[in-house]
């Protein structure tokens, strides 16, 4: 097969940033990659994509994990007539060994396009482009290697987490452990879509939220602490050369709960909202408290249909060793209710808004607390219940 001319794409080989065009060209000996280049050059010329709505394809017994994809011009690009992606559930924290990566590459060289996404934006390792007949063999080789598929469709999506305690001094609970435990616990929910719509879990070890969980997961578990920030007054000096204690630290505290008297830093911990800023800046001197755990937030999503949502507080604090059990309780209570009553393609965040947070809390068995709101209601439209009658 002769290599195609791709004058437009070639422009994207220039410059210091790694080039995806080079990546595809590196895979060029694979005819799928060659046709991908061709179809992409065509899109660049015509300013339009050439993919069709995916049909339902997958591996036996699973309802998710594969995104079916076909080109609308198979006559010109027969090698990408089928070009399905496989979502491979990544190991927690995206840690690998060279060894296991090579084995995955080998499978993909034999059975796919040679091209991957490391990683998809939910967190999966995305194997980019194969044909329907290869799906089952790929699946069997992957499971042989100890890997399994991730989620797609109206299921529990592949959970993901920051690297947490593996490589971060601030992790307030074991994000990777929790992510693994939850992923294993819910293999059925992950592989067999049975929800009204997708449902995501993400795990961040502290309020820096390095997996964007508050914005991108239905249930977001963010590490935090209850007691006082640990201060090593002596170590503050180590920071003195590049940090101005007032301009850079105390004046940036959202609640103004810190004082620097020129020699000593004091924190009114009752008013600390655990934002992490001072700890981030003075990371040799300050550390989260010792009574650690997590805040649970629910309901984030992208805009379709009702507008984007950030997750909102469900449980202000759960001790670290109860995090996994609490996630299970919450997930299951939520799935029971939303799974039963959610409309088709209604994320849980939208569902809550439709039925009312107060009602939702009652149904999932959580008591309302003021931490759940920015402020109490401003409108007087209260749905008083009949049971209130005396």
């Amino acid at each position: 097969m002769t290599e195609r001319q791709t004058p437009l794409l070639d422009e994207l080989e220039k410059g210091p940033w790694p080039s995806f065009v080079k990546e595809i060209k590196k895979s060029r000996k694979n005819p799928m990659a060659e046709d991908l280049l061709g179809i992409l050059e065509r899109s660049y010329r015509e300013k339009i994509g050439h993919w069709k709505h995916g049909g339902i394809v997958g591996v036996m017994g699973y309802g998710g994990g594969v995104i079916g994809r076909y080109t609308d011009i198979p006559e010109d690009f027969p090698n990408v007539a089928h070009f399905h992606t496989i979502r491979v559930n990544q190991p927690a924290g995206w840690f690998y060994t060279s060894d296991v990566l090579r084995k995955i590459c080998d499978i993909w060289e034999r059975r796919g396009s040679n091209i991957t996404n490391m990683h998809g934006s939910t967190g999966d390792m995305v194997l980019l482009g194969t044909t329907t007949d290869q799906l089952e063999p790929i699946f069997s080789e992957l499971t042989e290697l100890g890997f399994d598929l991730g989620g797609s469709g109206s299921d529990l999506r592949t959970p993901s987490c920051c690297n947490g305690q593996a490589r971060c001094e601030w992790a307030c609970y074991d994000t990777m452990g929790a992510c693994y435990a939850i992923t294993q616990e819910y293999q059925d929910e992950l592989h067999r879509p049975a929800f009204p719509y997708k449902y995501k879990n993400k795990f961040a070890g502290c309020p820096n939220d390095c997996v964007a969980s508050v914005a991108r997961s239905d249930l977001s578990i963010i590490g935090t602490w209850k007691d006082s920030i640990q201060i090593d007054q002596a170590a503050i000096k180590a920071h003195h050369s590049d940090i101005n204690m007032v301009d850079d630290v105390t004046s940036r505290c959202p609640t103004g709960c810190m004082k620097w008297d020129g020699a000593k830093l004091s924190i009114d911990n009752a008013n600390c909202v655990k934002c992490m800023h001072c700890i981030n800046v003075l990371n040799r001197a300050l550390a989260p408290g010792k009574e650690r755990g997590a805040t649970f937030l629910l309901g984030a999503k992208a805009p379709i249909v009702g507008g984007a949502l950030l997750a909102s507080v469900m449980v202000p604090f759960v001790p670290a060793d109860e995090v996994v059990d609490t996630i299970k309780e919450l997930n299951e209570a939520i799935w029971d209710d939303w799974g039963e009553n959610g409309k088709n393609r209604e994320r849980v965040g939208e569902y809550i808004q439709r039925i009312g947070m107060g009602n939702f809390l009652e149904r999932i068995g959580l008591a309302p607390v003021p931490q759940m709101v920015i402020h109490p209601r401003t409108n007087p439209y209260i749905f008083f219940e009949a049971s209130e009658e005396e």
Partner: protein
Amino acid sequence: MCADRKTDIGPPHHDKFLPPIIKNNYGKWKYHETPQRGVLLHVGEKGDKLWSVRAATARIASIETIRLFADIADKFSDGYLRWTSRNNVEFLITDESKVKPCIQKLEAEGYPVGGTGNGLTNIVHTQGWVHCHSAATDASGVVKALMDDLFPYYHDKELPGKVRIAFACCLNMCGAVHCSDIALLGVHRRLPAIKHDIIAKQCEIPSTVAACPTGAIRPKTVDGHQSVEVIEEQCMYCANCFTVCPAMTLNDPEMDGLSIWVGGKVSNARSEPMFSKLAIPYIPNEPPRWPTAVKAVRNIVETYAKGARKFERVGEWIERIGWPAFFDQTGIEFTKYHIDDFTHAGETFKRSAQLRH
């Protein structure tokens, strides 16, 4: 189906892939430093040291590249590596003397090291014309053009705070576009083209009608076919109908393009998480290198670099100076499109006389 077909085994346990130093220091790290841009040094309670060298990737990775990374890992980091939540790759090194050579090797192969601390890191992005049927624009190409242009801010040049750029090729927003310092979002601007002849076969008419957030779709018989019509004034080109029904396509070579959003964040540091807000409603698709979009983002980054205080994220900077100053300083035009007119629009109106004049 063979008897021993494995299913529901889940991902491998991460323990298998963690280097010994991490196992030994799991939950016991004390602090970190950044000896140079792109390198993190984590120090354990007992003094153990782990250098992580972070390199850029195009996210799209050929198996050739993954094998290259595997070789580099074998050589410098005992075979251990990881990817980050933003498509960078990190080599986990315990021998300090291997840090510089590892960097040199990566950069020589075209995978520059950087992305830590206050500055730019990799762009979270989506599939675009490489794989998705919904895309109003390409993803990887725009990202490549942008990062080439902004490269110093990834590699060595500092910005006041972290600047997280995200890219999504349609309103489904398969990325953190809705909460990014700077976001690029593919937009359609032409009514769904309806395939009247096949729609009733391909789609359920009632669920197609129900899919529209504004109620713009109505059942209608066209040329004897059971089909739908779209009320022009009520359509805002979200393509939710297309997601539900392939016979209603939004993609259009002339009208599709990009919008730019600013001021979102997800961390709780200092300020609470914030949504991104509209900066530029529309920029045409200009493959292969999208010069107008690139220039627009550079302008925002540079205006921010000039005006923001240390640690201040884009959204925090704008909140401090005020949106009028943002439009003024960037020279971006403020239009009626900037004023929200969806469900909660009224919540974004300025309901106070606190104004700079």
